[in-house]
């Protein structure tokens, strides 16, 4: 990754003004209500109820959680200075061990075993990168090559040749609802502008929510608190910013890197476990489908911060979920919103004299509208490609405003 630093320095614009980059709470409310009004408009203009239906929102939440957990995994590792592209492999371990543990010992023990499976994957990554100083990307790729083999073999010897790629039905952790929330169903069906949309969103978020979802959502503030408000977190972050300075202050750098990477694997394991026991009730080979990488992208989008990665995971999760719910119509309808956002961005960047970004987003925005008016439906494979395209476009537009930990991805040798 050594060329990265150099390139970004070469390509960097004048140093970004350090305005208050953190959003205040009223700004967050403004963004959320803006998004809701936008989606309601799309719903009405293109007659696409699944843009804000409770079913779609529920699916989006369930799609966002594994991405968010993978993102948290990425955050823990990279805050400690280790790039963990092996998240995908650790998630794969989580899917299988979560399903197997749930079948053998019940869902709660299964949760722990899934987390443990991912943590072991993280431990392997830590041994390779921290102790032996292997390039982080190479080790991560190796783990992602190893994990499917291990899982396939274990699957074969546990469930026989018929179960090599698929497990039996897996028991799941209970789901809970906010009392009375189902009463919103009537309101949602009325198709009133904004009111029905809000009802759909609330019902999607609060009805029949798995306890694991709640746990996962709580992990985001918990991670923030641990990393930014405790001595332990400060040490983890210092190791990712400047390991030599940390060492000179008497910190055991290796140990804190190990903590970061093992917690990272555990988070990814929980994300994988979520896929096989909450999103679906069965382990299937290839279930992760690159979500570890998308989670990493969500973390980059979130500028290596928990709140930002939650927003990124929600965005990518929402696009991921649409393919399940009449995606051809919904994605087509959403092109209105995407186009408007891109054109607005183009104007904003033009005022700020970022000509390249302005032109690029204007072209993409116009293309969105051309696509919207030229077809009625988006073909299914392209709907499935939507989350990946979203990742690329978002990173292309945002990547240069980001600040990774200073020693991220750099090998560190004790006493060096």
């Amino acid at each position, binding site marked *: 990754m050594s060329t990265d630093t150099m390139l970004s320095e070469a390509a960097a614009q004048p140093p970004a003004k350090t305005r208050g980059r953190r959003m205040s709470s009223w700004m967050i409310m403004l963004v959320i209500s803006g998004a809701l009004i936008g989606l309601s408009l799309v719903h009405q203009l293109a007659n696409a109820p699944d843009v804000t239906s409770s079913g779609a929102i529920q699916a989006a939440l369930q799609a966002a959680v594994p991405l968010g957990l993978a993102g948290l995994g990425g955050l823990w590792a990279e805050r400690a200075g280790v790039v963990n592209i092996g998240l995908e492999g650790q998630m794969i371990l989580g899917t299988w061990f979560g399903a197997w543990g749930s079948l053998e010992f019940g869902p709660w023990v299964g949760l722990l075993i899934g987390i443990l499976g991912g943590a072991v994957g993280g431990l392997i990554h830590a041994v390779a990168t921290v102790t032996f100083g292997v390039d982080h990307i190479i080790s991560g790729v*190796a783990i992602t090559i190893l994990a499917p*083999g291990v899982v396939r*073999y274990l699957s074969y010897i546990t469930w026989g040749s018929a179960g090599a790629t698929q497990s039996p039905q897996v028991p799941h952790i209970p789901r809970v609802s906010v009392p009375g929330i189902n009463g919103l169903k009537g309101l949602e069906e009325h198709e009133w502008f904004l009111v029905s949309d809000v009802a759909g969103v609330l019902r999607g978020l609060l009805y029949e929510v798995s306890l694991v979802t709640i746990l996962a959502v709580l992990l985001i503030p918990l991670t923030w608190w641990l990393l930014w408000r405790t001595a332990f977190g400060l040490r983890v972050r210092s190791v990712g910013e400047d390991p030599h300075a940390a060492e000179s202050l008497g910190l055991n750098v290796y140990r804190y890197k190990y903590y970061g990477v093992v917690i990272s694997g555990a988070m990814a394991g929980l994300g994988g476990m979520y896929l096989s026991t909450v999103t679906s009730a069965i382990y299937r080979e290839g279930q992760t489908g690159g979500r570890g990488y998308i989670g990493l992208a969500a973390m980059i989008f979130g500028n290596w911060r928990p709140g930002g990665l939650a927003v990124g995971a929600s965005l990518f999760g929402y696009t991921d979920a649409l393919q399940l719910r009449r995606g051809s119509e919904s994605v087509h309808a959403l092109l209105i919103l995407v186009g408007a956002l891109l054109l607005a961005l183009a104007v904003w960047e033009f005022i700020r004299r970022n000509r390249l970004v302005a032109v690029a987003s204007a072209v993409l925005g116009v293309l969105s509208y051309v696509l919207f008016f030229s077809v009625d439906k988006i073909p299914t494979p392209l709907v499935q490609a939507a989350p990946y395209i979203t*990742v690329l476009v978002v990173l*292309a537009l945002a990547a240069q405003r980001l600040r990774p930990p200073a020693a991220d991805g750099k090998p560190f040798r004790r006493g060096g």
Partner: protein
Amino acid sequence: MSTAAGARRIDVGKLLPQLIAPVAALVIAAAISSVALLISDKDPLLAFQHMYEFGMLPDTKVEILNKASELYIAAVAVAFGFKMGLFNIGVEGQSKVGAFFAGALASASFMDWMPGSLRIVLIIVVAMIVGAAWASIAALLKTQRGVSEVISTLMLNAIGGLVITWLLNDHWGVTEPGAQIKTTGILSKDSWMPGLPIISGTEQKVLGFFAVAVVLGAAYWFVINRTRFGFDLRATGYNPFAAVASGVNAKRMVITAMLISGAIAGLVNLPRMLGESHTYTEGFGGIGFAGLAVALLGRNHPIGMALAAILWGFLASSQIILDIDSIPKEIVLIMQGVTVLSVVIAYELAARIGRRAQQRRVGVATATATAAPVPAVEESK
């Protein structure tokens, strides 16, 4: 001791650990997979013996070389990036997109006039151009917007596969009589690449593209070791700051390396497409990631990667026999995964040991010959 080694210009102290490393990794992989087999009540020795015997059959040898050709091309594509610290994880996507568009164009009806041999050239050229074009997206995102090529190539892999699914099923795909799946259409017979009868004792022929893979390996060696461009590439990989200070244009290097890598990646599926299936189907793929493993195992060295590709081909081809002995053939996946992981660790350790041995020797040399000039120390990575 050091004088004899010095005369041959080969530093045994540095080379030996580098050679022991892959062997050690293989031993570790064999040990771990033996444990896995023992856990499931199978005899590991029997499994290895049967795999070896099956692998030595002439028919299997042909299949091994066929697999090795694809893997080797993929590995060279990856290695071009690796040499300058660039991670092209997108070989998988670039290879699919390249082969798909080349196949679709070559079997389109308006191309009927073209003689077969010219069509083979056309397929090769188009596959390379499309592969490079697909890689250029990641290259431009990196140089213009600072997006890490690791993430962008992974996303492009997924997007490429889905775009092909869409074009194949909704637009350009045809279903041949008697077939179930959509393909880009069978190429006319005169553009089938003839096989090479280089394995004796069998009617089977090695895919003709094997020869292209060999030429590619030689070209790779030449470009990396004997050209200005190759020097700049390696210099950027070793120390980007020094390279930039000496006048290397970092952005241009990223774009060029990525385009070359993508162009080679475009060739990956052609051995099968020109010599076996004669069309593109959705069954293609999966070689890109294995190519990464082969490049890691072979340390980006043209001969190292060739050996690694043959080993990978052997493991993949001879696993079939395990099913007959009711041994789960999935054990091979563990073997491959452990090999990759332990080999990268072993190489790192070997480099450390080599460095330490070198330091000690230099220390001894400078201490004994106080007046003599210090021998030049070549810095290893």
